[in-house]
């Protein structure tokens, strides 16, 4: 056990640090660009220099780097604040590993390098009004017509559908067999005729996710991943990687920001940081953050042996999202009444705490809710039995549903 860099790792870190120092985009370069163009600019620059998706094989635009090197890169990149990104996480973190596992070589060569370079953005068309936690209850239909499939139905909560070039899609190809057996997995061009995208406004006021309607949308059979009826299995590859990548973090309230705030604001007539109750809660969050960090380091060894992320990874999201929510709430309390103000100029930290408070409920739901994560740990890590289910072994079209789903 050694948490220090080996000489090779130190050399890699030095290289990464030096490259970042010279190449991180300056504010002047980003000025006037929309968020997506900013993200694309930075991604392309990394790609051209071999610093994008560094654990991917070189032939697909990566660097063939180890998982440990990925951690080192992430640590160094994170030292630079406010780098644009995020829009690629579904494509690079979920679609790409699914393509690597299930697509043929031609498809990999066609799509992976453009995922790495940020030239093409992907979205995930899984959830439906009738299939969220119970994803396999989805109803969007695909019917074979010659060499093509014809899709009809509706997806919902599709993050980034409005700016995506491609999507990964799970649909029902056979409603007469039990639900997990009748699914098939495809990828498709988001500009295909028959797709209609309608934004959904979130409680944070933004509209990052969408309803996506399919009316006679045609997908060539060559864009199928896995066999017909094997869609559930292919989806699991995506979902396992989703949990791993969502757990990885984002720009949210963390220990450092609340710790610094507690040094600045008062409780009574002394700095909040001197208050024992504040210290106790900060200590607990520190322990959770450190615990998640070192857990992910431990998981790395497994990943670097080529394993797909296991159900153990559910822990990152299950701990991280509620922790972030509680910390944002606590920070607002520390600010007392002025904590209610949410404004880039008037709020402490440009509204970081309020913004996180309003967006974090989504993270406890997206990519599998807290409750589903706990089920996964209970069933797949601890081996506890599933609860009895009303839909087991029954053909999908005979499964009871909620009234609204008629």
């Amino acid at each position, binding site marked *: *056990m*050694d*948490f*220090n*860099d*080996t000489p090779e*790792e130190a050399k890699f870190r030095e290289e990464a640090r030096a490259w970042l120092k010279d190449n991180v985009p300056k504010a002047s370069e980003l000025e006037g660009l929309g968020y997506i163009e900013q993200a694309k600019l930075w991604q392309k620059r990394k790609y051209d220099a071999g610093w994008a998706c560094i654990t991917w094989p070189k032939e697909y635009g990566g660097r063939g780097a180890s998982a*440990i090197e990925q*951690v*080192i890169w992430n640590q160094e990149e994170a030292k630079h604040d406010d780098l644009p990104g995020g829009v690629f996480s579904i494509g690079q973190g979920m679609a790409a590993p699914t393509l690597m596992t299930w697509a043929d070589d031609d498809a990999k060569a066609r799509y992976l390098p453009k995922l790495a370079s940020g030239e093409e953005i992907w979205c995930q068309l899984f959830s439906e009004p009738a299939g969220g936690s119970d994803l396999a209850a989805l109803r969007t239909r695909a019917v074979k017509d010659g060499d093509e499939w014809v899709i009809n139905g509706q997806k919902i909560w599709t993050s980034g559908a409005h700016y995506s070039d491609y999507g990964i899609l799970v649909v029902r190809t056979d409603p007469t067999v039990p639900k997990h057996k009748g699914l098939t997995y495809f990828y498709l061009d988001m500009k295909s005729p028959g797709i209609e995208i309608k934004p959904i406004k979130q409680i944070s006021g933004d509209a990052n996710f969408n309803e996506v309607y399919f009316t006679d949308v045609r997908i060539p059979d060559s864009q199928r991943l896995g066999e017909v009826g094997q869609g559930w299995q292919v989806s699991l590859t995506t979902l396992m990687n989703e949990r791993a990548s969502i757990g990885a973090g984002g720009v949210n309230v963390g220990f450092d920001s609340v*710790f610094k705030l507690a040094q600045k604001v008062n409780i009574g007539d002394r700095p909040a*940081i001197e208050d*024992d109750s504040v*210290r*106790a809660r*900060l*200590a*607990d969050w*520190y*322990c*959770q953050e*450190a*615990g*998640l*960090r*070192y*857990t992910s*380091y*431990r998981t*790395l*060894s497994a990943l670097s042996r080529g394993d797909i992320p296991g159900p*153990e990874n559910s*822990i990152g999201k*299950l*701990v991280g999202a509620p922790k972030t929510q509680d910390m944002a709430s606590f920070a607002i309390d520390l600010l007392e009444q002025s904590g209610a103000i949410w404004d880039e100029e008037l709020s402490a930290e440009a509204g970081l705490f309020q913004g996180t408070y309003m967006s974090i409920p989504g993270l406890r739901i997206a990519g599998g809710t807290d*409750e589903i994560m*706990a*089920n996964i*740990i*209970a*069933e797949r*890590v*601890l*081996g*506890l*039995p*599933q*609860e*009895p289910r009303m839909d087991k072994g029954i053909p999908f079209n005979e499964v009871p549903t909620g009234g609204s789903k008629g």
Partner: protein
Amino acid sequence: MNFEFSEDQNMLRDQASRFLAENCPPATVRRVLESDDDYDAELWGKVVEMGWTAAVIPEELGGLGLSYLELCVIAEELGRACAPVPFSSSVYLATEALLMAGSQAQKETWLPRLAAGEVIGTFALAEGPGETTAKSLATKAAGGKLSGTKVPVPDAGIANLAVVVAAHDGGDGAALYLVDMAQDGVSVSPVPTFDPTRGHGRLVLDGAAAEPLGKPGEGWALAQKLLDRAAVLFAWEQVGGAQAALEQAREYALGRYAFGRPIASYQAIKHKLATMYVKNTLARSNCYFGAWALNTNAAELPVAAATARVSATQAYYFASKENIQTHGGMGYTWEFDCQFFYRRAKLLSVAIGSERQWQNKLITAVEHSNAA
């Protein structure tokens, strides 16, 4: 970077686990629980034979010269077995204090005998209810003699050597003193605790001969450093116990039926066990970092130790109480073993400072490392 124990260390873990399964089954813990004994002398003898008391002592002083990573592995297994032995007192505290601060002569006098199990050591800090601080110390040295009362002191009834924290002889601050327990100025009486599997006593010093350990006046800082180092080892014991409690709960939940199905299929139980798993996993990962910091004496040790300690204390408490809950009425019976973990979890949580103290130390350590 490498976040794994080595193959040899994993072999040691298997060996330790087999040894304890054979020599420290629940019946051994129960025997001590139900007797007036402070420990299981036979088990202790075998632990010494295994060389565990000698693990980190250098070879020239009769030890095995192993690293602290090996000691962490042993600590976890002892914690898992709720072993009724004075290992933490003698090894994590007394031996460690000598290794850190002993003069050559002190090391030569005591370490070979601690390694060989001829001497059991302990550490005496507490002086009754509430936190004992450098200012509150009522035990004082005068003219090389110690007087005062330390209570409770783990393993006081069986220890031959005590490292005592006391007000410094003729100066400000505290000092550590080595006290040979076999002398007239020392008397010990047993103190009952809620975990009788680990003996505790009242140590009354009345002009006891004592030798300073380390620089007098710097004793408090030394004690804090000692506690940081010990905290990592205690945390590994706690993580071992928490894991065993989770396993016990899991096994029972799978076998117990209610309303026609295993209670392990009810979500309230599943999520309870999932929470145990999460807390245990985070604590264990923090213990990895603690183990590394301890082994390399890294600058991060104060943060790493407090992080491991706080999360392990919380994980063990949670697992031990919810293990009883998962067992229903059975869990509350004397006959069942759930009580072992529940007793030990709380005993360990106050053994070297409460959760609150360590939360506070953690933030202090973060403040220092940010300032540096």
